[in-house]
């Protein structure tokens, strides 16, 4: 019984981080129909920035915010410099460009920060709670992780549903041309979208690292998982990203806990293929609303 509860708890904690990363991917896909394969490298890079801050005696919170700011800026810069000139061109070219960024940023991180494993301490404890004689796989860190992602999700929801900015972002994502006719500066919003995605990706990057180790390719599986989760949910649905992330996290944990840890990536791949074959639009893709 304890095993099952812990598998579930692990699944939720991991799933919520996958969800955060999937959110970043969805933010960009919604507005530009681009899957940003460099998102993971960006997040990894900003986590290293956070680590550098912490190594210079800044508290975790400052480092965290520093990473978010860096993620925001890097996202905006990449959109303006690399993606903007390619938008509207061949899809393949943009995919390759983001892959190039992925490779380059990862190499740059290794050059600047080294390839060895570096520990990234958590601001709260990493000991599992004990309830009666149950040793729970729930630590203060995992609660922190869940709460942080929760804050991000709530924040994004409020942004999109309740603010003017959110309204214009949604409008621009649904119909860029009509939005421009209505006076919305769509190109500025695209840059903002990438910046926001960079910020959210940074959150995921730090949360994965907290209480653990980082090295230049530590985000690699999260990139694959994030993509799979986003596909499960429907690449243009933020709710889908969260649900997809949780589903995948729990599936991964079940595979790891009841089959073998080494089979997790294969299991995730199987889930991806299943979704793509059975319901390629994902669980929550927006219904094709007719436009007349």
């Amino acid at each position: 019984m304890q095993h099952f509860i812990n598998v579930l708890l692990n699944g939720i904690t991991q799933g919520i981080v996958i969800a955060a990363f999937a959110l970043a991917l969805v933010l960009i896909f919604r507005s530009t129909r681009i899957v940003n394969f460099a998102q993971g490298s960006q997040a990894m890079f900003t986590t290293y920035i956070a680590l550098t801050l912490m190594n210079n005696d800044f508290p975790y919170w400052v480092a965290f915010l520093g990473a978010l700011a860096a993620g925001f800026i890097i996202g905006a810069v990449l959109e303006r410099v690399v993606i903007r000139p390619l938008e509207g061109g061949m899809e393949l070219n943009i995919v390759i460009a983001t892959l190039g960024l992925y490779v380059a940023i990862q190499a740059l991180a290794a050059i600047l920060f080294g390839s060895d494993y570096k520990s990234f301490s958590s601001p709260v404890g990493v000991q599992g709670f004990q309830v009666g004689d149950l040793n729970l796989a729930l630590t203060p860190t995992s609660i922190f992780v869940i709460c942080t992602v929760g804050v991000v999700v709530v924040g994004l929801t409020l942004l999109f549903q309740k603010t003017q900015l959110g309204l214009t972002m949604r409008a621009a994502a649904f119909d860029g041309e009509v939005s421009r006719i209505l006076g919305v500066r769509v190109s500025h919003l695209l840059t903002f979208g990438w910046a926001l995605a960079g910020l959210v990706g940074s959150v995921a990057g730090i949360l994965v690292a907290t209480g653990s180790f980082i090295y230049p390719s530590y985000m690699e599986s999260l990139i694959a998982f994030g993509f799979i989760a986003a596909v499960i949910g429907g690449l243009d649905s933020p709710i889908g990203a969260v649900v997809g992330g949780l589903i995948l996290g729990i599936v991964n944990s079940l595979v790891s806990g009841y089959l073998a840890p080494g089979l997790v990536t294969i299991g995730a791949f199987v889930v991806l293929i299943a979704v793509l074959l059975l319901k390629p639009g994902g669980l929550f893709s927006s219904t094709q609303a007719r436009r007349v």
Partner: protein
Amino acid sequence: MSTDITTAVPAPPAGPSAMQRLLGLNLVRSLLVSLGVLVVGVLLLESTDAYTNTQLSSLTYFTIAAIGLTALTGLNGQISLGHGALMAVGAYTTALMLDTDSPLPFPVIALAAIVMTSLVGFVVGIGAARLHGPYLAGATLAFAVALPSVALYFKGTFNGEAGLTVISPRPPEWFVSFIDAVSGEFATSSKYVAYLGLFCLVIALFFALNLGRSKIGRHWRAVRDQEVAAEIAGINLGRTRVQAFVISAAYAGLAGAVMAMVVRLAAPTVFTLVLSLSLLTAVVIGGLGSITGAFIGSAVLVFLPPLVTDLSTDAKLSDTQAAQMSPLIYGIVLVLVMLLAPGGVMGTLSMAWRRRRARRQLTATPTKKG
């Protein structure tokens, strides 16, 4: 001087000679090109030192894989980030088959590697056939991340992290005599492996040259460019895509087989996502869909990194840093190529040539009067 068109009809040109007709046959042309590459390869191998020979060996398997990938992406329009993993299938098959006291002859092993990888490619291809663009990239990326786990999970057969060492085959007598006759050198097993790689490359090239100009090649291009029209013309989209994937996988399998013998190791650390991405980089730099481009791009990716690493170590960078300079550079190159010259080397050259030819035709056409 009569300018009356009706009286100035020139005599019809003489029909093509037998030689011209022979050269016009695709098959003959491909054969000549392949033989040419073989001869150049032998010359290169015999006139360079052992270190360069190893690099040339790497070039052979890299180019084989690149040809397969450029055909898939350039001709058929499907992107794959999983070709490194497909090479792993070929490599592990080869390693396993060489792991006996009296291994089967290399052509049999190579064929087995090709068949195994094609089977895997078939399975992946069925899934891939339904996907486009980023979905396909993501799915093949997930595949590339997942496949190494298989090797790690089945530790018994595949020896986990450490992988399988490959014992290089001993060069047969006739080969030793051949090398002695050609250059007076002693034929090491590394040299034998290099020649095996060259031979595989030449065969792979021959098939690829015929593929591009064949009906299959035309179908692939039709599916890439105009799906709906292709379907209406009776081309089965799904089947064509799977076919492309399988053939591309076959190339990757052969490349993996050669790689296993050159590197003498089949392990998960050899077949990372970075390998798949560097294959993609080679293909993009060379120009998608171009076989010449595959050669160019592979040469860049085999010869440039050691140069870069050496330069970096000279510039006082640490070993790790020096090693990372190559991926940094080719990541940046990938982005720059997309921004500035998406057609790669061959694509940009052919565009420039076409433009010049168009301009020449415009100026050569006599202007009509009245």
